[in-house]
């Protein structure tokens, strides 16, 4: 696990990308998103409630994702977030940017992926 400071900076830069990616193919609620990040990063990345939700609200405000209360029988209503068309464009750009960024870092540091 990286140092707390690096962890925070990395998260800040990539958090938007992560969240947008996760709601790309279907709507998800906040807890689900948090769980998936932790799960898919095999525990490397974790968002606690205090950083996850402000981020979700900010993305929503920018119009990149949109939250909606959804009710299912026998359950309390939950707020599901889905990607908006504007978010889709941002996601595509951020993906390209990220790939470029990683490649650039790799070229400098000499780290190669298998």
């Amino acid at each position, binding site marked *: 696990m990286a140092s707390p400071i690096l962890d925070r900076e990395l998260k800040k830069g990539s958090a938007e990308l992560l969240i947008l990616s996760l709601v790309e193919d279907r709507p998800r*609620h*906040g*807890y689900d998103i*948090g769980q998936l990040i932790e799960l898919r990063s095999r525990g490397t990345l974790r968002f*606690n*409630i*205090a*950083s996850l*939700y*402000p*981020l979700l*609200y*900010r993305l*929503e*405000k*920018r*119009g990149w994702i949109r*939250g*909606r*209360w959804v009710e299912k029988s026998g359950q*309390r209503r*939950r*707020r599901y977030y889905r990607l908006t068309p504007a978010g889709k464009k941002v996601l595509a750009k951020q993906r390209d940017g990220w790939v470029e960024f990683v490649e650039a870092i790799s070229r400098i540091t000499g780290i190669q992926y298998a």
Partner: protein
Amino acid sequence: MPDFSNEIRKRLAGLQLSALREHEIVEELSQHLEDQYEQNLRGATTEDEAYRAVLVSLDESDLLGPELTRVERQAPEDSVVLGAERKSNMFADLGQDIRYGLRMLARAPAFTAIAVLALALGIGANTAIFSVVDAILLRPLPYKDPGHLVVVWENATHLGFPKNTPSAANFLDWQKQNTVFEGMGAFAERSFNLTGVGEPERLDGRRVSANLFDLLGVKPIVGRTFVADEDKPGTKVALLNESLWKRRFGGDPSVIGRSLALNGESYTVVGVLPNSVRLPAFGNWRDQVWVPLAFSSEEAADRGDHYLEVIARMKPGVTLQKAKAEMETIAARLAQEYPKYNVRIGAVVNPLHEEIVGNMKPALLLLLGAVAFVLLIACANVANLLLARAAVRHKEIALRLALGADRVRLTKQLLVESVMLSLLGGVVGLGLAYAGLNILTRFIPADVAQAETISIDAKVLVFTLAVAVVTGLVFGLAPASQASHFNLNDTLKEGGRDSGAGVRGKRLRSSLVIAEVAVSFILLIGAGLLINSFMHLRNLDPGFRADHLLALNVDLSEVKYSDNARRTAFFDEVVRRVQALPGVRSIAVAGNLPFTYNGDSMGIAVEGIPDPPSDQWPDVIYRAVGPGYFSTMGIPLVRGRDFNARDTLDTTITVVVSEKTAKHYWPNDDPIGKRLKAGATTSDGPWRTVIGVVKDVRQNDFIAEPKMQMYLSYRQLKSLMPNALVVRTAVDPLSVASSVRNAIWAVDKDQTVANVDSMEHIVAGAVARQRFSMLLLAIFASLALILAAVGIYGVMSYSVAQQTREIGIRMALGAQRSDVLKMTIGQGLKLVGMGVAIGLVAAFVLTRVMATLLFGISATDPVTFVSISVVLIAVALLASYIPALRATKVDPMVALRYQ
């Protein structure tokens, strides 16, 4: 399950969220914590441990508060939006947009002032013209069920009278035989001399059927209208109009029952009618007194004398077509019964509203179209201003988008701004319209009914509001949609310069200028055509010399001047006295001066020529005049002599004919010495010997070709009375008016004198309608030209400013000032050229609707089209020359350093 909501609420306390927003966050976060708690429990910890672990995660990096503050602070009102219904926020948003818009408008006062002024001109013109259209065309007549009221005419198209005034006997038959009308009333003009109360006064009035006012549904202010019983000879009752009642009787209700001396006879006043009652009238006839029609038995049987006007009310359920059909049937029957008078005489039924206002309709609709065009040009101008400003505001808009502003919301906000602009323009425009109407109403021809009801009322206000809002949306749409469509990345990369998105902006601005030029071209062509045809009208020879000519009405009392000798004595004395006045060249007795009367014509029989069949009998206009009439009026005598004092009832009865009459009856002979008489050869009137031929005079209608005319000497007439005097002066004719009046009163102190006017003014009144539309269209077209010039200037200035760098480079590379001038003006000319080309095609098509308003020129008059094109291009050249000149002053070094 523990409740986390209180823990969360505690941590949100400092954020000052709205209740709804807080509730939502609490609900969402506590669910998250519950999920986490349940998961912790599955990890086999105790409930207590699981609970504490959850709370720890909540406070892990102490971020919730600060992070949320940053997110939620941006626009607190917005937060309510999430998940809540959109509708409840429309007004909160609107309020915010309005406040923001006001700040933006206040920040650019010059821009705001120019835009508001342009819009005020456009909206004001629309408001003014709409209030005229509303009063004259749209407002129902002030009668009961006005839609059922119609006017019925005889149709004598074959004699040149498609709407002829019916004779009394025909009217009475119509009244008896029809089944389609609830009632039918007739009326005829009659003037009255009011004497015995203060100064003698001549009053316009009518004889009316007793049922006429009940038929119209008129309620008297005091007293009553006529009753059927009063519609017979010898009943001397009268109705007064409101103005006369107030002016002469101080609005005293006790006037009812009072006796008035009218034309030397005593009438009892039975009622007062409101000013809104205005029967259709020719010229500036304004009814002030009404008396019963009261046909004598001879009158009631007369089919040859056509002088009535008829209004009827259709029964409920009867259509205009049905009424027309039945009246045609009745007319056909009468034609069979009385072939001598009625052969080929049909009947015409027209809605009363159309009769009263119909002749103003084409001009008013044209003006309404014109002001709409002016508004369109103003819109294009303001849209251009907004576009130019949008370019300046790129950075602001880009920043707002980057900060997460919603594009729809942004568009809405820009629209709110433009609607606010146009509402401001509407308010100022309303003021302009109010001021303009005061001037405009002075040019409305005197005989236009309802003109005095023109005002800015609730309906007009609603119209103005609607126009303002629609205007704001129209001119705001282009800039708003452009602003919300631009590419965020490009804008940020451009560093705020206007190039990428600017190309589209420039194209839009250019098309707006092209449209402006095209629209103002159409307006200018319209105005040019009207001005041109008005010139043609003014150049028409009326057949007499109108300058230095004073005209006045002198209606003699039938009682006091009952015979020819008394009339002659009176007029001889008046002529003698006036002739001696300083400044007077000559004076003559006249009857029904040109353009003041639409009647008095008859068929004549000519010695040696068989009478034509009755349906082919041409009418000849006749006038009773005194010696010296032709020379005083300036009507050239072509052959023979004028009347003189020796032509009396005891000598040869004489007549002077117009050239047209002479050509018609004696195309190959000298008309002098030939004889004619009124009516058929067999009629008992005397033969009249032609003693002179004069030039044709335009008598009733300024525009139509003069009809056949003849003049009779009043000294040789037993019944027909002259009613006017004409005075040729060496000075301003109105300056002798009071001495002429005094000369008349010196002869008879009770004699009324009315309508004292210069002949020039009377002629001008005959073309008042044409002048009205010409003047207004010319004003609106000039407005359009100015707005278009400002538009061209604005776009050229802007484009020069944008090209500063390019111009700088060119000049640095050796371009001469003249090259730069040529380039810049060339750009302006290209736009104007395209606008003129489009306008030319459109005007070619559109001006055809004006054909009925034109005189002497065609709707596609090449002279007008060419000269307007030249004017517009010249103005456009000037408008782009000033910015071009500025372009040549660019210092290459400064330009190159510029960004």
